[in-house]
């Protein structure tokens, strides 16, 4: 057995999460075109089309912009999120029908639900692994895919790191419904907030189960159609958030993804650009040099999703 494999056998949950983040860290400049499908308990579908822009600065400031393209009535609605280097989240909204001004949103994701979807803002911007405690669980084999399993706990309860004394991977998959605490030193009444399933092969978090206060599955986030995008980095082209009790779910299908600084210039993350309705009127915006934004391709920094 190679040393690296032996290391993984003994890796803690936190260490596995560090590996996952390191492998699939946010690419600095990403432009995506998405189709979002909301499915209610009766199977009715509402489809929205939107664009997602993200930009990670060298000083670790991150910017995200989501712009709705359809339905027509919500075209131009934008959500701008900025995360400071210190991790402070600042959100603002733009509702074209309300007037040409940005509206500050002072709370998280509009009360847990992001624009009527089953996602929260945190689901979309990623998890700050330093804000939580992690505990590794027994590995699982699901549909012939081997997973590391890591439970996420509130950072207020436990001191990090908490290592589960696992010596070898379990050969058979285990049910993943109600979490069972092992002898990890955790308080008996503490329950995980969620559970990540990391594909062993590439450390990609392919599934996350969210639990309610009783430890019962409340939501399940699954990422499908995984593609390698750059080196060891993988991305999913299909995201699904399911609410099993209320039987509604939200699909996000990435129809186009471009990794390019040219697609996410700084100016589009500004109030001026948004309230001028540039996001609506001029998607194929011109660069400063007069060329169109979209055709600019940096072959070193761009990965096109050819399969979508």
């Amino acid at each position, binding site marked *: 057995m190679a040393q690296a494999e032996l290391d993984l056998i003994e890796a803690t949950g936190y260490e596995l999460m560090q590996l996952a983040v390191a492998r699939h860290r946010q690419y600095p400049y990403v432009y995506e075109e998405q189709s979002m499908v909301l499915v*209610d308990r009766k199977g*009715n579908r509402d489809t929205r089309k939107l664009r997602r822009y993200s930009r990670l600065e060298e000083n670790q400031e991150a910017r995200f912009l989501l712009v709705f393209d359809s339905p027509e009535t919500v075209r131009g609605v934008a959500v701008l999120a900025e995360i400071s280097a210190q991790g402070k989240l600042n959100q603002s909204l733009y509702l*074209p029908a*309300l007037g040409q001004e*940005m509206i500050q949103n002072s709370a998280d994701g509009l009360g847990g639900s992001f624009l009527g979807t089953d996602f929260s803002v945190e689901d979309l911007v990623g998890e700050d692994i330093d804000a939580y405690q992690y505990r590794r669980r027994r590995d699982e084999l699901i549909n012939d895919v081997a997973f590391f399993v890591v439970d996420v706990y509130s950072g207020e309860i436990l001191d990090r790191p908490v290592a589960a004394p696992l010596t070898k991977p379990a050969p058979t998959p285990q049910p993943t419904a109600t979490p069972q605490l092992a002898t990890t030193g955790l308080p008996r009444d503490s329950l995980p907030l969620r559970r990540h399933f990391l594909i062993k092969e590439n450390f990609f978090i392919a599934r996350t189960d969210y639990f309610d206060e*009783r430890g019962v599955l409340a939501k399940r986030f699954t990422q499908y159609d995984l593609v390698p995008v750059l080196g060891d980095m993988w991305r999913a082209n299909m995201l699904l958030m399911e609410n099993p009790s209320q039987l509604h779910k939200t699909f996000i299908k990435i129809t186009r993804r471009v990794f390019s600084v040219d697609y996410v210039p700084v100016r589009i993350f500004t109030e001026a650009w948004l309230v001028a309705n540039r996001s609506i009127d001029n998607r194929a915006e011109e660069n400063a040099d007069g060329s169109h934004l979209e055709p600019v391709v940096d072959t070193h920094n761009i990965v096109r999703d050819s399969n979508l």
Partner: protein
Amino acid sequence: MMASLLRHGIRYRGIILALVAIITLLACMGLSKLVIDTSFDSLIPVDSPARTVYKRVVDEFGSDNKTIIYIEDQALWTPTKLAKFSALVTELKGVKHVIEVDSLMNLRTLSGARHAGKRTVSAGWVLDGIPKTKLEATDAKARALKNPLYRGNLFSEDGNATAVVVTLDDGLQNEQGFNQSVHIRLQRLLDQYAADFEQIFQVGPPRISAELAASIIQDLSLLGPLSAVVLILAIVLFMRSRLAAIIPIVTSALSIIWTFGMLGWLGVPLSLLTAMIPSLIIVIGSTEDTHMMAAFFRGIDDDLDKPQSGVTAKYRAIATMFKHTGLPLVLTLMTTALGFASNLFSSIGLIQDFAIASTFAILANGIITIIVVPILLVQFGPVIGADYNKNNNHNDNDNDNDSDSDGDVGKKAAKQNVAGSEAIFGNYLTMKIIQLFRVLQDRFPNYTLLFTATLCVFCTYHAGSLYVTNDPMSYFPEDRPLIQQSRLIHEKLAGIKVFYITLGAETENAFLIPDNLRKLEAIQGFMRKQGGFDSTLSLVDHLKYVNGVFEGEFARLRLPKSQALTAQYLLFFHRSELQNYVSHDYKIANIVVRHNINDSNNLNQYVVELEQAIAHIVGTEFNVDIVSENLMVNRAANSLMMSQLKALGLLLVIIFIIMSVMFTSLKGGAIAIIPALIPIVLMFGMMGLFEIPLNPGTAMVAVIAVGIAVDGTIHLLARYQELSYSTSDYRAAVNQAVEEVATPLIVSSLALTFGFAVLMFSSFTVVAQFGALAAATMLISIFANLLITPIIMRWVRLVCLVHIIAIDVDQEVLGKSPLFQNMSNYQRRKAILISELHEFQPGEKLIEQGTVGRSMYVILEGEAEVVRHESHGSRKLTALNSGEIFGEIGYIRSIKRTADVTALTAVSVLRFDYQRMQKDLKFFPHIAAQLNFNISGILGDRLADVLAD
């Protein structure tokens, strides 16, 4: 035929009893299959088109049946209480079959502000976890109360009361025992938290269903035995016979087992109405037992001085019982069963089930009574009675006779029984009632009728204000905790009853268009002005709320200005938050209305007004439906009224036809109806006067009362027509019939009154009201039957069809008799019945020369001679054989008989009395006229013969 059948029953009583035992055993096996139905589904007409609409709306917008956990505490918004609250909500989510729990723990709220020219919107949970400090809790309270969508719906105005809305698995709600098991689980949990909050209780389908089931069982276990006790007391009091009290209990017990066994086998569920069947069987079924035993005792009384053994006397008494009660028994059984069966016309499943169960119960009880009572009387009847002596002779200290069963002992026992029967007929109360009524009948018949008619007019007037209600919550008494707590929720939050107003458009996104939203707003505005409903909530309220958040408080009263802004605001709601108010494609909008109106009449009036207003507001642009399960149940009130009126009308017609046919007279049919109509008219008047609503319980009183009240009339008419065969003094016949029937009629009516009054102890208001009204109706039926009916009876002469058919005469004799020329067989038979049948022994004089008589005779059988006595001796004029007539001169003119007519052999003759025929001319004009015509012919022939001689 009937009597013959019954006699065979006694002869083969071993087989009969074995058959009864087998059926009873089979019924017992069916008892284990009995189920209790507490769903509201049975309160909705089966054919209601609203069912389809309701299902479609519920599929779209979710169930209107939610369970509410009400919690009130002055210190609710403190960390300690909220921690308890949170723990409760967490545990509620874990209760089996609970699929969703909405409470202040998962409520989102928005708030908006403007700082330095910048709009800020804050969104978050009312409670993001359990507050750690009092201040945090107070802030959360302020956030909650600021949201108009929650205030008055989920929170009281002061915030100290809140509702936890529990959604159960829809698919399982109609499963047997589902609601009860959920209720128990929820209640166990709430009990654990009872000490933590000032008030904590649940209201919703599981509790209502559980309370219905518990009350049904309570009614079953209380009302039946109580009725039995009342019945025994009434019979012992009025009939002074323990046997007379025991026999109805035996027949009732068997009937109850048969009925509930049948319900079990057929899968007809127990409901609040079928739960009163034991009581009904005991009280109604006992009336036939009472009449039969009264006739039995009368038979003993009649035969007491005849030389015979005790056994023979008993058999003769039973034969008398059959003779006098056989026909009325079958008729009353039919009419009572028809009364109950009429409820089958109701479109409400609850009443239909009751109709099936009660009709079967009455028929089963009738059959059991007919076959078992004679057997019981044969076995345990007082005449031969060692047991009787033991039971009745204890005061005489004469127990030596215990082992004897025949001869002197039997006679002695019989005499003692006569004492018992004298107790029946000499009952003080009965006699006083009869005496009082006799005075009115003899001295003031017209005034009595006028008074009754005036009373009926008065009651008909008040019956006009009668209203209908069918709301399940009105089934419970007002002081019941469930009702009180429902009222508390209504006062603090909003009523637990919900209905939906859906507006369907042709095109998608119709309810993003401001004009259409304004129509929704107008409808809600109208409902606020109506003032009957607690709250209305729609997409409009959500949009106004968000508009207020973004545009400032002043905009909270306004809708978004454009379709685009509406759509953009709606992004702030999760689909699940809107799913109760608008379809996903915005084609159908829904207004959720909460109220606490427990009266169908009021609710239906409000809804009718609302429908008119909506039609005015939206025109024909939208397809509008106003639905909910509760509304369907309440709307069924209208069909309840119509179906009961239909049932009542049809029943009266059927009874009229049966009675008219049975007594071969339309007047007979009318007379049978009148005493049944009077109690109903007075009952409806009382209901209108005392504002007692027509509901599934009280609606049945009319048809059931008709079926029962007519029983007494039938007994009275049957006895009267029997007595009429042997007298021309019809008034005397009426009086005698009343005297004979009065005691069993009064006893059975009082027993019914007390028996129905027992239902007033029911856990259900509708059953208690049914009991009270039915009891009052039974009392009124005594007055109608014993005071009014006799007055009217004097105007008619009845001949029973059964007796016409049963006449055993030689048709050849009738055919050749000139008196019956040109008459059909039926007319001849009827003519025989309006005459008098007399039998003479050889040597007896049928007519004595020199006397004055106004009768004419037809010889049916035997031979007689006509002998004229003259001064010089006697001369045989002629011999008379069957079919020949004599005495026709005296019939025509009041002159002395000119000869003796003496029986040579045993002779049967029909006697036609002139005065009686004159009376009967108005009752049976066609037959009397034909007879008179034939007599004229006979006289003509006689004259021709004389002239020829």
